[in-house]
């Protein structure tokens, strides 16, 4: 183990052992001007906040952001202290990767929140697509007069800019042949096809040249309803899959037609017996929890969207508003910050669920960065109290996650 690694790990242990930080109060109380700027930047027209004097739940982190010119060094924030250690070691760039927020209640105008945090994990050095870096995880609680109002698990990658990134491997692609081409043509056409014997009508999957039941070489197909039940599942963690981010959940699905099929399952932590429905992504059938499909939303991401949402979330990191600085740090342009992405996810779900819906939590993972010129396309599936949300750009999945909502 290198000396740098030892120093970082020792600092991580020291900071983690210090436990929960002292409460760091927000500089300003929850206030209408900040809420209006945030709603405008996110494009959220939900009238409820202003009418009831409430703050959008996804804003919770905004209140305790330190601002452009912090008055004093924030020694109480374990993420800040750990980041200083990593800066010192050369891991000077930062990108947020995961955020899981739970809302006990909405904040009201005039309330002053304070946040307490503790360091829960420092893992590295890891080779990532951005370069070598360390993942830092913290757990935070926001309080109003000692009453917990929201919690958050937050993970960032602190990385060394300009370090050589490993070439991103291509995902494993299916091999097709004369006996299976119909299936993959179906995927391209948005159909889930099952081989059916033209003579005896027997269904089978995986398909083959003929029918093991009657021996005929007259394969046809039927289009499946696309619904089924989880027979078993796997959550793959290690080793890395080419071109994929772990964990990947894979389900063995009993189709309602009576055959079984393997496919990735997105948007839920499954259980055997769960009802699922098929969608298609990346040229493969992908399963989702059975439920209501949300209307798709295309967000045209302009520099104004990125910069206004960064400022409205009080995130003044240069990579979100200064193109030259972003390029210097190895990015191709400025990119959306995680607080804004969280806001867009909130807006997507409440636009669909209506102003009366109450959000209980938003849990997201970030993938491909979102730059000016991108179209960020949101899709979602609602099942029970959960909405699985994904936001994709042309380069890949920018965000995936789950929103818990009650009405």
């Amino acid at each position, binding site marked *: 183990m290198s000396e740098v690694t030892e120093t970082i790990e020792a600092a991580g242990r020291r900071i983690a052992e210090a436990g929960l930080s002292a409460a760091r109060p927000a500089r300003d109380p929850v206030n209408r001007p900040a809420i209006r700027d945030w709603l405008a930047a996110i494009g959220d027209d939900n009238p409820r906040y202003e009418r009831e004097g409430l703050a959008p739940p996804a804003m919770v982190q905004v209140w305790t952001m330190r601002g452009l010119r912090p008055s004093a060094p924030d020694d109480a924030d374990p993420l800040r202290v750990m980041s200083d250690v990593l800066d010192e070691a050369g891991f000077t760039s930062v990108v947020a990767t995961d955020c899981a927020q739970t809302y006990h209640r909405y904040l009201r105008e005039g309330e002053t929140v304070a946040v307490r945090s503790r360091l829960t994990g420092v893992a590295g050095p890891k080779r990532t697509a951005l370069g070598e870096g360390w993942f830092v995880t913290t757990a935070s609680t926001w309080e109003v007069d000692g009453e917990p109002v929201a919690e958050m698990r937050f993970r960032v990658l602190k990385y060394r800019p300009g370090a050589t990134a490993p070439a991103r491997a291509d*995902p*494993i*692609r*299916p*091999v*097709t*042949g004369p*006996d*299976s081409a119909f299936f993959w043509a179906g995927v391209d056409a948005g159909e889930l096809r099952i081989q059916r014997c033209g003579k005896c009508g027997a269904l089978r*999957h*995986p398909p083959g040249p003929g029918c093991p039941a009657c021996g005929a070489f007259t394969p046809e197909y039927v289009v499946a309803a696309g619904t089924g039940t989880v*027979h*078993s*599942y*796997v*959550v*793959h*963690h*290690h*080793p*890395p*899959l*080419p071109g*994929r981010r772990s*964990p*990947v*959940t*894979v389900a*063995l699905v009993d189709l309602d037609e009576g*055959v*079984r*099929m*393997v*496919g*990735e399952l997105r948007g839920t932590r499954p259980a*055997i017996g769960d009802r699922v429905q098929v969608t298609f992504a990346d040229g*493969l059938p992908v399963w989702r929890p059975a439920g209501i499909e949300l209307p798709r939303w295309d967000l045209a991401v302009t520099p104004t969207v990125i910069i206004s949402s960064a400022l409205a979330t009080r995130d003044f990191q240069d990579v979100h508003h200064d193109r030259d600085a972003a390029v210097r740090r190895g990015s191709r342009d400025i990119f959306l910050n995680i607080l804004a992405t969280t806001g867009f996810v909130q807006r997507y779900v409440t636009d669909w669920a209506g102003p009366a819906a109450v959000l209980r939590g938003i849990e997201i993972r970030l993938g491909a960065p979102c730059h000016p010129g991108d179209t960020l396309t949101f899709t979602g599936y609602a099942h029970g109290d959960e909405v699985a949300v994904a936001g994709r750009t042309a380069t890949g999945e920018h965000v995936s996650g789950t929103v818990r909502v009650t009405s």
Partner: protein
Amino acid sequence: MNAAIAGIGATEFSKDSGRSELRLAVEAVRAALDDAGLRASDVDGLTTFSMDDNAEIAVAREIGAGELTFLSRIGYGGGAACAIVQQAVLAVTAGVAETVVCYRALNERSGRRFGQAGVPPGLDASWHYPMGLATPAAQVAMVAQRYLHDYGATTDDFGRVTVAARRHAATNPAAWFFGRPITLDDHRASRWIAEPLRLLDCCQESDGAVALVVTSAERARDLRRPPAVVRAAAQGSGPDQFVMTSYYREEVAALPEMGVVARQLWGRSGFRPADVRAAVLYDHFTPYVLMQLEELGFCGRGEGRHVVTEERLPINPHGGQLGEAYIHGMNGIAEAVRQVRGTAVNQVPGDGPVLVTAGTGVPTSGLILSGA
């Protein structure tokens, strides 16, 4: 059946042999011939795994063998281990060869690691690998998850298989994990590989080689070592069989291919499960040890965990592939021979037969060995 394993040989088991696979093969074959008291010129047959990268003729050249009359390979990864011994037995009893050496050599840790995500050729893989089932662990995990659901077993039941294996390996100087036993808490704390499998549910990756010399039982009796007579050898594939992904059968949490092997082994040998002194079960992943016990008839369906917790049967006294090394099941056959001879480091007393199985989740194989 009238054949026996007359010699066993192996290299050291490591994570980085520092030598070619061919050299490992040659070292193991020479050691096995020495053990049997035979010379390279006695060898007239060679058999190995389809996956082995060392040509029979290269091994023959390097050991200095002369003419060969029998060359054979078996597919399906570790499922071949006992089947290549069956090939040798068939050749010897059919009279097409007199001395057949079975070998397997691999730099599986320092070279091509089976645990990494990769795609085998063929159309079958297209229904599984692109979707994210691209490692053996993930492919087994799909069956394991259903097994937990169907029979109410827990991941602790998987963990107890590893704890036992590591306890045995701890007293086996040839084992990679010699002197390093673990507790159930160590298993519980090990990281997820593919839920419900943790790191400590997965066998090691190893460098090494093992070779076995098969000849007629009659001739074996005159050689240097007491023979391990092959009382039964069997290969088996189940209905609707796939490689590691036989998910399309009515029952997913089962290994019917091992049932095919079991029925032949008991039928041909005349032994019953209760006669078995020790079982060397292929343990690439812990759930399949439990499921093999069920298929082999040591207990009912879903009851494998009770055989382990109640220690009803000595299993993998050498530490298995979880504890000793992963030589694709061949080190397990060598252990079975030592148990028959009475020379194993963790010797199980008695004179009953010893059962060995090969890789599961694929077309597989098994052997029953006993003394002359």
